[in-house]
């Protein structure tokens, strides 16, 4: 099995909405970790199985190397914006990622974005996973950049 789609983890969304977790999309620190094509993201999985280093997201399938540490890179600028990218929509965005002089020799096909602040009830709980569209990426002493769309990493359209 392998990557085939991007998505938000449903249980994490439920945990935020019913206050099971105190994840704060605006102020918590989130990290982005890279993964090989030997995983199959399950967006319906239980919270304990969508955290970093659990379930499909075990470190055995993580890609990392020089200047891209195991566990990934911290995101910055994460913020929620109501009425964006258009009226009736809620955007969650982050600053683009750009790490210089990286060597990640293991081919990666997607990433996990997880909360690195909250420790309980689930530490490092995944928020969403992004499929890179089937392209295999590696770096060799080069820049590893992830450019998020101007419409954000994720947006919710609440006015159908």
């Amino acid at each position: 099995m392998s990557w085939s789609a991007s998505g938000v983890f449903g249980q994490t969304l439920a945990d935020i909405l019913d206050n099971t977790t105190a994840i704060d999309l605006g102020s918590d620190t989130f990290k982005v970790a890279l993964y090989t094509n030997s995983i199959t993201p399950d967006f319906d999985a239980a919270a304990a199985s969508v955290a970093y280093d659990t379930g499909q997201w075990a470190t055995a399938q993580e890609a990392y190397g020089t200047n891209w540490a195991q566990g990934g890179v911290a995101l910055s600028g994460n913020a929620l914006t109501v009425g964006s990218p258009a009226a009736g929509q809620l955007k969650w965005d982050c600053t683009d990622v750009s790490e210089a002089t990286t060597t990640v020799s293991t081919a990666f096909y997607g990433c996990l974005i997880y909360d690195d602040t909250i420790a309980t009830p689930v530490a490092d709980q995944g928020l969403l996973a992004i499929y890179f569209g089937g392209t295999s990426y590696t770096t060799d002493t080069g820049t590893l950049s992830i450019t998020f769309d101007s419409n954000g990493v994720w947006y919710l359209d609440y006015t159908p």
Partner: protein
Amino acid sequence: MSKEIDLDKYRSIGTLRSGYKKSTKVTYTGYGKSNQVEHWSGRKDANIHVKPIVTRIKREGAN
């Protein structure tokens, strides 16, 4: 004794055979001996552009 040769210097005066890339190192190993030639791939970047994940709340029916 070996000596590294600045390929760019020779490229500019046209004495370097075509096909040698900038990431090629030639080491002079002595008179009458073959030079040691090494190639390496050089720097490789990964520039990934991702589309947003869109979650839509869908209304059923006309009202």
